[in-house]
Every structure is written in structure tokens, then in C-alpha cells.
């Protein structure tokens, strides 16, 4: 099935065409929902590409074309080539079930089942897109990172050889070829994102008990070593 037929099936009938941006949803609520996305995506003035691309200006953008972002899956690039443009309808379908719209996307997100949640999130994203009616007065502040790490911790240069040994513990569940069947892929992440994520588990900001346990006994150097090793695995 192409994304077009899926759209026809799951979307067009269900979602009334909305012309007024402010009718999309509640962007304040959307900002809360965006926390689910913030581990991988940034928005706002200082946004950078992370695991996922910057989402400023996503409205109207051809899929797979955010400037300077180099990590698109073949599936996403292909969808863009096939003509997928991020408009309201397609964002809604993608957020509902990413893999049903873009079958081999690497976005590890189960989807938002609740239509109101999606509408609110899209309203929030819309704030960061280039639509004169919707550009906010004040600079958006974006979302704060999950944990604030000292520059010393972020500066540790990991030893990939040590990381390779430590990684054997991860590979009981996470697959080394980056495929994902219920447990997320951890290959090819930018080092800093990897380090922040592991520290967030270590201090139990992120909720998963297995990961809290695994990260809980890794030293700062061991986390850096793992980040260094997994960064280069494709």
C-alpha cells in the first residue's frame, strides 16, 4: 500500500478540512504533548538537528528534505520523492501511526491514537512554521533538555573499543543492525543525544525500569564509550 491509499482509508473521511490555523487545536496543550517528541526533535530559535530533524517550518515541507539533516531513512526519502508534503492531513496521519504512512521510517514512535492530541500537537508545530498568521510575537523558547549535564561530562571522549565490549550487554535486546521490532534502535545516534538519554535513565528521569537499571551502573566514561561505539554502527 502506498501512503496515499492509506490516507484515503484512514484519514480523509475522518478529518474535516480545516482552513483556519487556530481551529487546528490547542497549541499550549500541544507543547506538553511535544515532550514525547523532544527526545529526538527540536523546535524554536536555537533548534538543531538531533536524532530527528528540526521541526521548524515543517508545514508545507516536502518529506525527507529538512536542510542539513542527513539521517533520513530510505523510506522517508522515498516518500518525499513520491510527493509526500507535510500538510495538516499528512502530519495527522503520520502522527497517528508513523509506520503506516511511511512504512520503513526510522522514527521509533508508536503514534498518538487520540485525534485531539494530534490536533493539539500539530497546532503547536504550526507555531514554528512560516505562516504569517501564526508566527508568534515572542521568540519561542523550545523545550528544555531532559537532564543538564556538565560540560566535563559532555566532553568525555569515549573509547569505542571499551564501548564495543560494553555494548554486548545492550545487544541482547537492541539489534546491532539497527532494526527495531518492539525495542528501539540505538545505532547511529549523535553522541550527545546518546549521552543525554543514558544519563536521563541513570537519574531516573526517563521511566523505563530495564534501562534505569542498565544505565544506573554505568560510569560517565562507560556511557561515553557506548555512545562512541554505537555512533558508527549502521
Amino acid at each position, binding site marked *: 500500500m502506498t501512503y496515499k491509499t492509506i490516507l484515503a482509508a484512514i484519514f480523509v473521511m475522518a478529518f474535516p478540512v480545516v482552513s483556519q490555523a487556530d481551529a487546528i487545536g490547542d497549541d499550549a496543550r500541544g507543547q506538553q504533548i511535544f515532550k514525547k517528541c523532544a527526545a529526538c526533535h527540536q523546535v524554536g530559535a536555537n533548534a538543531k538537528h538531533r536524532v530527528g530533524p528540526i521541526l521548524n517550518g515543517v508545514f508545507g515541507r516536502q518529506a525527507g528534505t529538512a536542510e542539513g539533516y542527513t539521517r533520513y531513512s530510505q523510506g522517508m526519502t522515498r516518500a518525499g520523492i513520491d510527493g509526500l508534503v507535510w500538510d495538516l492531513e499528512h502530519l495527522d496521519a503520520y502522527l497517528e501511526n508513523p509506520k503506516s504512512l511511511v512504512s520503513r521510517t526510522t522514527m521509533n514512535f508508536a503514534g498518538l491514537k487520540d485525534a485531539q492530541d494530534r490536533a493539539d500537537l500539530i497546532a503547536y508545530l504550526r507555531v514554528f512554521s512560516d505562516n504569517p498568521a501564526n508566527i508568534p510575537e515572542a521568540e519561542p523558547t523550545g523545550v528544555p533538555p531532559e537532564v543538564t549535564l556538565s560540560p566535563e561530562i559532555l566532553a568525555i571522549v569515549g573509547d569505542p*573499543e*571499551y564501548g*564495543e*565490549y*560494553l555494548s*554486548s*550487554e545492550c*545487544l*541482547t*535486546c*537492541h*539489534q*546491532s*543492525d539497527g*532494526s*527495531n*521490532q*518492539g*525495542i528501539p534502535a540505538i545505532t547511529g545516534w549523535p553522541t550527545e543525544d546518546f549521552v543525554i538519554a543514558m544519563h536521563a535513565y541513570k537519574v531516573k528521569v526517563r521511566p523505563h*525500569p*530495564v534501562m*534505569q*537499571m*542498565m544505565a*544506573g*551502573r554505568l*560510569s560517565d*566514561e*562507560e556511557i561515553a564509550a557506548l555512545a562512541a561505539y554505537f555512533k558508527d554502527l549502521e
Partner: protein
Amino acid sequence: MKLNRRLFLGATAATLAAPYVNAAGHGRPKVVVIGGGAGGATAARYIAKDSKGEIDVTLVEPSRSYYTCFFSNLYIGGFRDLSSIAHSYGTLASQYGINVVHDWAVGIDRDAKSVTLAGGAVLPYDRLILSPGIDFVDGSVPGWDTSAQNAMPHAYKAGSQTELLKAQIEAMPQGGVFAMVAPPNPYRCPPGPYERVSMVAHKLKNENPTAKILIVDPKEKFSKQALFEEGWQKHYGGMIERIGPDFGGNNVSVDAGAMTVTIDGSVEKVDVCNVIPAMKAGRICDMAGITEGNWAPVSGHTMQSRLDENIHVLGDATNQGDMPKSGFSANSQAKVAAMAVRGALTGSKVFPAKFSNTCWSLIDTNDGIKVGASYQATDEKIAKVDGFVSQTGEDADLRKATYEESVGWYAGITSDMFG
């Protein structure tokens, strides 16, 4: 453990400097691995992969297809088909250069450092890795021995036994009785029997809703008990009865001809009887003379046998300390052993041993639970550091996510074992 990196790098340098010799005296050092399951396949793969051809690895395993015990209960419950839990050794041979020999090891000469196969071949080794899994203790359930396993299957080694048990459940008369004789500690996969009961109940609820399940259990308590009992109440209210030691669950015998189970003197006629006897290390460990009691004692630092430093033992066969006998544990131990073996034979870096385990179980559709812990090696044993377990009363979304995670784990560990 607080790891002092400088300290252990120091230790590594010492390992590097130590002379290492290859007993055969010429050619590449040889590692023979007996048993191509969770422990053995992982160890063979890691040694071959990480030594990049410097070590000659032979894997001895009689079966051409390995059926994982993990997820075999889900096959019984109808959540998996049998072919989805079967794995072959093709990639280990073709991609990792492992010499896979489909035969039984029948003798080990520790002085000559060689393994004899049933087919007559003799394989010399510099290091031997044993991961033969379990065998059953004779006489632990009076009336049952392996000659009774067709009438009363154990299904505790996966494959044809699992298929047989499933077929017997399907052939039960409406309102019939499924009995399980649960094993005493220690045994393979602590939650395994109770996950099995859940999966049998799931199947019967659809196909034979008036049937009953009777568990005869010599143990006071069992793994994830509160979680299982809550789930059984919720999904299968009234179907499952467990007789613990207080009511004679530790005084049981069976008659495979008459299909009866005798509990503390009272005879029950049953339709299916799943006997899971007491367990011990796979027989080859006894033949090698490396067991004490029923199991093979090992050092947690390297998984070396306490009785022979040229032999490493993995997985269910070992007596190592606090880790449960699980596929996850065997896989985790295999990586520590692989590192130690490479260090000893090629002088590669050796890092401190770390272990972990998580066991997921499925109670009913999308109702998954888990228990896990991390471990470190001390001089006496593998010691538990930290752990977690699912909670009673968790919401349905979390239980579903836990189940989905177990599916991901299955894909992960089987590709970590077989490439």
C-alpha cells in the same frame, strides 16, 4: 560496583604482558563449544566475530534446528507458530567461519584436552566451552522417567515435546483436566511453568472453557507469584488450582499408563499431564567430571569451571550464584566467557565481568510482565546488584508495552545468538 578505570586498565596491561600459549603448539588456538543454545551459540559467535579469524572455533550441536524454549509457551498459547521459534546454524558457519558439527559430544579427556564425538571424531582444544543446558534427575517424580515422556511430556526442551504437549491439550475432552507437576528449585526459567499455565489457560478459555488446570507444586513460593495470581484471577477466574507443599504438592507420583497423579495419597485421573522433573546440568558435565552435586561450579569473573581452568561452563548447567537459569543469563554469561577466552588465547583486552537478566512472561493477550536484575562477579559468586519487577495493578497500556518489548527482546537475542 564502582569501576576505577585506571585500575582496571592496569590489570589489562598485566594480562597483555602475560605469556599465552596455545596448547596444540602450532596453528591458530582452538576453541570447542559444546551445545548450540543460548549460551553456546552466543559464545561461539562472539569469539569468532571478535577474534577476527585468530581463533579456530568449532561448535558441536546434534540438532540442525534449535527451537528456543523462550517463546515456546507462546507457541502453546497460539501467539507464535513453531517455525518462528526455530533457528538454524547457517549464518554462524557461513558468516562467522565457525565450524559447525552436528553430532553429540560423548567424552572429554581433560588431560589430553580433547572431545570425542559420537561419530568417532576427536577434537583437540585449547579452551573448551560447555553449554549443554539441563537434563532431568532420575526418580525425582516417582513413576516418571524419560520413557514416559510421550504419555506425560515435559516440554522443557523445546521442539517435538512442545508440539506433543500442545496436541494433547487440543485433544482434551470438554471439561477435562490438565495437570502440571512443577519442578523444585533450582530449575531452568523460574517463571516458565507459570507462564505455561497462563498460556494453557488462554488456549482452553477459547477452546474448552469448562476445563480445569491443576498445578502440583513442591515449592512454597514461585517467581512473579503475585503477578501471575492476579492475572489468573482476572483472566481465568476459577480455572486454575495450585496445590502447594502444605497440601501435599511435595508428595506426588504419577502413573503414565493409567494417566493418574497421586497427591499425598489421593489419586486424580487427568487428561494431560505435563511433568517437569527436577533438573541437573546436561550429562556431558558429569562425564567431564566438573560437577559438584547436580551442577557445575564456576568462577563469575570468567565462567571458568572451578575444577578445570581450561573449561568454561555457561547457562543452565552452572552453579554460579544469584543469576536465574534463563536464556538471557546464558547469553550474558557467554559474552563474559568469550572475552576471557580471547584474552587467554590471543591476549586481547579483558574488562571486568558484568551480567544482566530480564525475564518477560505473558499472562494473556497484551498482558506482559517482567522481572530483571543486574549482577557483578565477586570471588565467591555472581552477585545481584540491583533489580526490578512489574507491579500488580499496572494499567493495560504498560502491560501491552511490556509484551511488545518482549517481542523485541526475542528478535534481539536470537540475532545475537545466531547472527
